[in-house]
C-alpha cells in the first residue's frame, strides 16, 4: 500500500509526534484511508526494529521496546565523550561570533558543518533559533551552560574578542 510507505517516510523524517490533521493535509487523504494506512504500517512493523506509536491525536515512530538496551548504549556513547575537532572548530566560531548562521560557519570552515552542529546542539553546547529576516535560516548561539562551563559570564570575556569578531564580521 502506497500510502503506508509515504506515512512511514513522513513519520521517519519528522522525528517528533505528528498530528493526524497535519498528516491528512500532507498526504492529501481522508480519515478512513489514513486509518487503513496506520493499520497497514503497524502490521508491517510488527517484526521490525521500530514501531508506530499513537497517542491522543498524534502519531510517531519509535524504536521497539526489545531494543531499548542497544538504543541506550549508543545514545550514551554518542552524547558523552570528547568533542571532535570539527565540533570544536564550530563551537569556537559560534562563541567568538556570538551568533551565526549555518552557511556563515560553513564558509569560515570551508567544509560542511551539519554533523558538527548537530553534535553541539544535542549536547546543549549551542542553541538555535529562526532568523528574524528569513524563517528558513537557523541562527546558532552559545548556551548559557557552555559559558558557565568555560568560566566566563559574558562573550565579552573571551580572549581577543574584538580583533577576532571583526575579522569574522563579513561572514554572517
Amino acid at each position: 500500500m502506497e500510502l503506508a510507505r509515504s506515512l512511514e517516510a513522513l513519520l521517519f523524517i519528522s522525528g517528533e509526534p505528528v498530528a493526524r490533521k497535519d498528516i491528512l493535509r500532507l498526504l492529501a487523504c481522508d480519515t478512513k484511508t489514513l486509518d487503513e494506512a496506520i493499520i497497514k504500517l503497524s502490521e508491517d512493523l510488527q517484526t521490525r526494529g521500530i514501531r508506530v506509536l499513537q497517542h491522543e491525536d498524534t502519531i510517531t515512530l519509535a524504536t521497539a521496546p526489545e531494543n531499548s538496551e542497544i538504543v541506550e548504549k549508543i545514545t550514551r556513547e554518542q552524547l558523552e565523550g570528547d568533542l571532535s575537532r570539527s565540533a570544536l572548530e564550530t563551537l569556537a566560531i559560534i562563541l567568538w561570533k556570538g551568533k551565526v548562521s549555518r552557511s556563515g560557519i560553513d564558509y569560515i570552515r570551508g567544509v560542511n558543518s551539519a554533523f558538527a552542529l548537530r553534535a553541539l546542539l544535542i549536547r546543549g553546547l549551542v542553541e538555535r533559533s529562526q532568523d528574524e529576516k528569513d524563517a528558513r535560516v537557523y541562527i546558532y548561539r552559545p548556551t548559557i551552560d557552555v559559558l558557565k562551563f568555560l568560566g566566563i559570564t559574558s562573550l565579552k570575556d573571551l580572549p581577543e574578542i574584538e580583533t577576532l569578531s571583526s575579522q569574522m564580521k563579513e561572514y554572517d
Partner: protein
Amino acid sequence: MVYHVRVKEFDGPLELLLGLIETRKLSINEISLGSVTEEYFQYLETLKQEMGETYHKEIAAFLVIAATLMLVKSRSLLPGFSITLEEASDIKELEDRLKTYKLVKDAALLLGARFKNRNSLYTRAPFVAVAPSFLPPSKPLDLSRLLGILKSVLETIPVKQELPQKTVIKLISIEEKIKELERRIADGIVKTFEDFVGDKKEKYDVIVSFLAMLELVKLGTIAAEQSLPFHGIQIEHGTRS
C-alpha cells in the same frame, strides 16, 4: 586580418582544445591536434588582451600544452622533422589527457542532469527522541585551546583578490608576424630565427614567431635549416620557380 575570437569562459587548456576539436567534429588524434593549433594560439592572444597583467599567471597552464602543440604542428608541416622519444610521449600524453577529459566532461553533464531531476533521500535528525540536557565533554574546554583552533581556522579562509585593472598590450597576431617575417627576410634583415625573435623574452612571442616561420616554410616562401638540434635556425628566401 584581426581575429576577434569571443572569449568564451574556457576553464583551462584541455577544455579549450577539446572545444576546438569538437567544434570541427574531429576525433582526438595527432592530426586534429595539429589542425587546431593555430586557433589555440589565437585564443591565447585574445586571452592576453582580455586579461592584461594577470595574463602571465593564468597562461602558464596553457603554455605547457602550447609547447606540445608546437611539436605536433612542426611535425605536420616539416617533412623529416624528427622528434625524440620523450617528445613523442608528450604528444601521446596530451592525446590521452584529452580523451580522459572528454569522458569526465560527458559524465559531468549526465551527473548535472541527474542533479536536476533528483529524488533526494533524507535522513533523520540524530537522537531527536532524546530530551536535550547539558552534556559537556569529559575533559574541560580550555579557552586558550579554543582560541588556537579558531585562529588556525581563520587562516584557511581564502583571501578575496581584487581584479587588477586591465592594461592594453600591443599584440601581434600570427598573420601580422608572417607578413613582418616575410618582409624582413626579403630585405635581408633577418638571416636566422634568432634575429627575428630578437631579445624578446616572452615564451609566447617566440612561439608565435616560430609558428609564423613554419607557415612560411609550408608556403614555400622561405627555407629553414637547422644543422643540429638546439642550434640556430638559418632562414633564406625560398626559390619559387
